């Protein structure tokens, strides 16, 4: 039985249209439809239906204060909504390399300084809400 696995070697990410691929070390899309219980007396098992979608994208970026780098791209996004685009690989968008776009995602917090002695500084960001779309062409 064939097992198809994905080895992420060159994924791409843009945040607010800014390509931050070369600063990103981790990205997770959580595509979530809230579950609402609709079980009744006539059921013998619990039953659920879909509620609101509650999507999030969490990313880890290397911090950089240089011009047009991480800090310049992220700092002004706090308290606002933006668009994120992520792909498993840098090639053309296809069924095997889908492009995910989260539009209207809210960034509530950012840690401009998150550093330890002797280590490269990284920041973790969580973008919440918004509409997730998947493109395959």
């Amino acid at each position, binding site marked *: 039985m064939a097992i198809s696995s994905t080895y992420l070697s060159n994924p791409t990410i843009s945040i607010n249209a*800014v390509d931050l691929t070369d600063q990103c070390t981790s990205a997770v899309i959580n595509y979530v439809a809230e579950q609402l219980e609709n079980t009744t007396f006539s059921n013998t098992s619990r039953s659920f239906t879909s509620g609101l979608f509650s999507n999030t994208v969490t990313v880890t970026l290397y911090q950089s204060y240089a*011009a047009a780098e991480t800090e*310049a791209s992220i*700092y002004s996004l706090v308290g606002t*909504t*933006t*668009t994120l685009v992520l792909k498993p690989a840098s090639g053309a968008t296809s069924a095997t390399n889908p492009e995910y776009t989260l539009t*209207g995602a809210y960034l509530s917090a950012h840690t401009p300084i998150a550093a330890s002695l002797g280590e490269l500084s990284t920041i973790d960001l969580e973008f919440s809400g918004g509409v997730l779309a998947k493109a395959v062409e």
Partner: protein
Amino acid sequence: MYTIISPRLGTPGDPYIPAEGVNIDALLNGGLISTDSVKKSSKVKSEPKEQ
């Protein structure tokens, strides 16, 4: 009208046309794009007429 400054957005110097959902203020504040300056017309004030 905006102009690209950062190569992370495209070719610097090219006009930037924001896609839907892009936070323009954040790009401006971060120095990633600039607004094209509106050139003032070169009007020369006419001297007041002598009465």
